[in-house]
């Protein structure tokens, strides 16, 4: 079952939640990231290649699983093929956690020849972690003794090397006695000693074990591995181990890293290529060895570890290993709810605040704690890291990928907290003027969306001025990304303002007006850059889509966010959208105008009913502007009186004589919902449906009842915005007759 799942995971698209509101489910019991997920992340980067490999690995695994049970003679070639599959996958990506149980079982049950077992064992390289139960199973097979002593030896070496990759060690520790019994084997003894050295806890130290060790030592002479174990026992229970051991040894154990070390490093490095940070944090191994970099010049989010500061509190008791439990409780050790209840008053953050970024539980806790110092600690750390690693501020910094991933992590944490980090804000202001607009583009721009709400004139020189400069000189994709980020920024500000208004205590007046001003400035800024961008990019449909998306938020500010603010899009945006060649944009414009209307009507009603004392009234100019637009729109789309009724100074009112010079027939109706370039496709399709035989396409047929049918047809094609607009803003004289006068009524 498990294998099934693993084979499918890489095919699934990697869905990144828009807001990254990580839920607790990501944090499973034990505070670990789901190993499979992290594997999945890593693999999805080079999906294509992995997929085939994944498949062959799965086949190989199922082959080995079956082979173990069957007694039928095995074909050498098939066996070889599967062996190759396992080897190549292992060396390239490492094996997924669920592969270990099968393969370890195969190796230690002695089903195959030793050469095969050796090769399999050598390729047992984890992609992320090794599940504890697979090791437990392996040890039970080891005890059965079906495999040769060479394989036993190699397995122990493997266990020593991989010890830190095993996800839990509780059950493994329960097997302490079994391991201990292997000490009698002379050949295995040094390696068993090493395993025991890694496993030993205080409760494992027993008098009978000490005696056994001393006997062994008497039998075999002074062996460094035995001494190592004895010295550890003595460390735990000095009163029980009374013999004197020689002073410090240089090396207790021979280097037993075996053939795996290089492969592990290679796999880890390759996997880190796709997500360096999560992997490093996950494995708890912060520093990949291969890199030659100055100390500390590497972007690593510290793994969360309990503070060691209180270790020294009770120095009187000279007890340095154990922190006395009634002082504080590290949050990352929380596993159960009762535990939380018991320790809620003495929870403590990890020693390095930076580690909260990757730990949802800690972020939750951070949200509840009022302590100022935690923010300051994070501020210092993050500020330094951002400065140190920023590729466009530090000369010759080749680690862009790492930085990108760091920014991503920071952004996700901000989304989680629904709040920007001040170190991050500072970083944006400082580095934006130096940014080329390419390096880490999407990550950097996304951080912009969490800049906190503050006076516009304050941030303008740091944020909006340099951003505008880049915006005008960069590609259309950059422009779209900027607009997207600014939309997010606007939304975050609006959400923040809603909450602030709910909570704000004194000085409502100043705060509210300041708020409105700042938001208004942002909207005006976007209006300005949008107008320019439309001209620079030749009224690109793609760009227009992003601009209208922004106004999709702007048009609803009053009703959705309770902020007395309505700003119409500038003519440079409105008219290109109205005359757009693309029905999506036209539809969106219709929707936006419909929402503007709803907001204005609601404001007017509130004003008239005087239920509330309004401090703000929309100026008449807003209504006027809206009316001008609506007249132009209805004139174009509905009443076929384009170029006539438009009263906007920048609108498309044109003299009849001038129009007649253009020699276009039916000028006035050329932008109604039948002839509009964006709607032409629909009207053609519609005509083809109602008169299937007619190839002449007589558009004039669409009138009267057919006009209504046509509308129904349009609505059925998903033009909801158009529907909302027509139903709200156009009062139709009668259903039968086409209305002569569309009426813009506000």
């Amino acid at each position: 079952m498990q294998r099934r799942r693993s084979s499918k995971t890489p095919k699934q698209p990697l869905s990144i939640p828009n807001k990254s509101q990580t839920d607790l489910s990501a944090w499973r019991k034990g505070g670990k990231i789901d190993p499979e997920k992290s594997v999945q992340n890593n693999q999805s980067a080079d999906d294509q290649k992995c997929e085939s490999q994944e498949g062959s690995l799965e086949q190989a695994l199922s082959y080995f699983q079956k082979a173990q049970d069957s007694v039928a003679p095995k074909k050498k070639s098939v066996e070889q093929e599967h062996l190759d599959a396992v080897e190549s996958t292992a060396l390239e990506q490492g094996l997924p956690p669920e592969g270990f149980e099968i393969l370890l079982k195969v190796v230690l049950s002695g089903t195959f020849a030793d050469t095969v077992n050796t090769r399999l064992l050598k390729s047992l390289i984890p992609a992320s972690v090794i599940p504890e139960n697979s090791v437990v199973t392996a040890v039970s097979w080891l005890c059965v003794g079906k495999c040769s002593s060479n394989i036993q030896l190699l397995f122990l070496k493997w266990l020593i090397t991989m010890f830190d990759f095993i996800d839990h060690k509780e059950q493994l520790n329960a097997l302490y006695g079994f391991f201990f019994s292997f000490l009698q084997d002379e050949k295995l003894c040094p390696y068993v000693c090493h395993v025991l050295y890694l496993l030993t806890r205080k409760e494992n130290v027993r008098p009978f074990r000490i005696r056994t060790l001393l006997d062994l030592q008497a039998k075999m002479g002074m062996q460094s591995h035995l001494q190592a174990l004895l010295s550890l026992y003595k460390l735990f229970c000095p009163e029980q181990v009374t013999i004197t051991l020689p002073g410090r040894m240089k090396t207790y154990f021979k280097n037993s890293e075996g053939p795996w070390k290089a492969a592990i490093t290679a796999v880890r490095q390759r996997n880190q290529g796709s997500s360096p940070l999560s992997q490093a944090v996950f494995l708890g191994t912060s520093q990949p060895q291969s890199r030659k970099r100055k100390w500390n010049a590497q972007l690593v989010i510290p793994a969360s570890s309990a503070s060691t500061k209180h270790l020294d509190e009770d120095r009187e008791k000279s007890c340095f290993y154990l922190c006395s439990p009634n002082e504080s409780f590290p949050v990352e050790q929380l596993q159960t709810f009762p535990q939380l209840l018991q320790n809620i008053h003495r929870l403590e953050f990890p020693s390095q605040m930076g580690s909260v970024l990757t730990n949802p539980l800690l972020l939750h806790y951070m949200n509840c704690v009022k302590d100022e110092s935690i923010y300051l600690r994070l501020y210092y750390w993050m500020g330094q890291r951002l400065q140190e690693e920023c590729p466009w501020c530090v000369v010759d910094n080749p680690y862009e990928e790492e930085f990108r991933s760091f920014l991503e992590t920071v952004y996700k944490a901000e989304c989680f907290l629904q709040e920007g980090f001040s170190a991050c804000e500072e970083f944006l202001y400082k580095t934006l003027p130096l940014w080329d607009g390419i390096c880490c583009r999407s990550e950097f721009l996304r951080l912009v969306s969490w800049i906190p709400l503050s006076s516009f004139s304050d941030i303008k020189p740091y944020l909006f001025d340099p951003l505008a400069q880049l915006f005008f000189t960069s590609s259309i994709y950059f422009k779209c990304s900027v607009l997207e980020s600014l939309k997010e920024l606007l939304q975050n500000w609006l959400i923040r303002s809603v909450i602030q208004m709910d909570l704000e205590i004194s000085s409502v007046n100043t705060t509210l007006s300041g708020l409105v001003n700042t938001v208004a400035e942002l909207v005006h800024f976007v209006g300005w850059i949008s107008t320019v961008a439309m001209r620079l990019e030749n009224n690109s449909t793609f760009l227009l889509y992003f601009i209208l998306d922004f106004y999709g938020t702007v048009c609803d500010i009053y009703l959705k966010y309770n902020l007395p603010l309505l700003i119409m899009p500038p003519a440079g945006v409105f008219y290109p959208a109205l005359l757009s060649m693309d029905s999506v944009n036209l539809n969106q414009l219709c929707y936006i105008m419909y929402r503007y209307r709803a907001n204005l009507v609601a404001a007017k009603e509130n004003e008239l009913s005087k239920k509330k004392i309004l401090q703000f009234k929309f100026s008449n100019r807003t209504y006027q502007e809206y009316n001008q637009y609506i007249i132009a729109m209805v004139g174009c789309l509905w009443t076929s009186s384009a170029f006539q009724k438009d009263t906007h100074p920048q609108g498309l009112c044109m003299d009849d004589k001038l129009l007649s010079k253009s020699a276009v027939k039916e000028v006035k109706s050329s932008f109604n919902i039948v002839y509009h370039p964006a709607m032409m496709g629909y009207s053609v399709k519609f005509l083809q449906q109602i008169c299937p035989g007619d190839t002449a396409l007589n558009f004039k047929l669409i009138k009267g009842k057919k006009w209504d049918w046509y509308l129904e047809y349009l609505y059925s094609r998903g033009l909801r915005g158009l529907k909302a607009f027509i139903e709200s803003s156009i009062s139709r004289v009668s259903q039968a007759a086409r209305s002569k006068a569309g009426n813009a009524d506000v």
Partner: protein
Amino acid sequence: MAEGRAPRAGADGKKFERRRRAAAAMAEEAPEDGAVRTLPSLRRLSRALPFGRSHGRLTVPALCSQEKADPQKTAFVLRKAWTLYSVTPLYGFRRARLRDYARLLGAFIAAEKQKGLAVEVGVELDIKVALSSLADIRGSELDQAALLVQLSSRSRSSSRNSEDKPVWLGWFCSVFGDELSESVPEHFTCLPLFLSHGAESYTALVGSWFQKTFDCCFRRLAISPLNLSWMVAMWAGCKLDRAASAVELVFSVPRLAQPLDISYAIHPEDAKALWDTVQKTPGEITHEEVDVFMDCLYAHFHRHFKIHLSAAKLVKISTAIASAQCDGIVKVRPLGAGCSNAGQIKQLYLKVSWFFCMISYKELLNPQF
């Protein structure tokens, strides 16, 4: 609508006040209410810092050298090449615990050196760690006393008298960091400059331990050419009552296939004479003065060699007082026999470390990109 709602200061309400004004220049607009966190007032600080193009005046603080200084205690500063780091404020550091810290740091180093093997805290280890306060190294009463970390290897010959061999030295200090120290809140200790001497592997170990234990952040402190020229100007003018070594400036010529360094040595008396003609107010240095001083040197060089040094990058300077490299390595010169009075030495290292502290503050709070 929420207008007119009664004041409420719930947990949620507080949360939204957490956000601090971050940008240096924005910090002027003071937060309206008291709930706002106390970040160091960046604005104030950045204004006080002398080394930018924008604010170019530096007043050398008067050093209080009246108190008795023990030359032995601080003489270790001299004659060594120090690598500079800037350090963010230490969290939860307590001076009363220095001995415990030394023990833990010793165990940490031992554990790191013999990976995978158990280490007992508190027993005698190969590397002995000592932490001590250096009350002498600070500018004013507001500064934290400097903190010295010494690593020495225990001599194998078990004779009690044999001296431990020092292997590594490092010290944290704060000199005239008044503004920063004042604004750092409780539980934080501000020692923004760290200097290390010895193998980088030890620096890495000690630094990692401090980072882990006190949640601080170390960063190599590079010295910009601008700051190097400030140093030349500042130290060229110092009075020295002995035959001092030459003032030397090393320039590196960028974008060449073969690296080319130009060394420009000036007789110390000439340098001093030049500076004296440039400086208007004793005890105060302005940016214009430094520019004029450097321009004079450049013009002189150009007259003789037809090379515009201003187009090259200043990478190293050495004066009678100290030498400094752009990659953040400094050396305070040993003084001659006639100059070894404690007060003078103290003056010297305080001046030097004050300067680097200033750069470090700037790095920490208002980095110049």
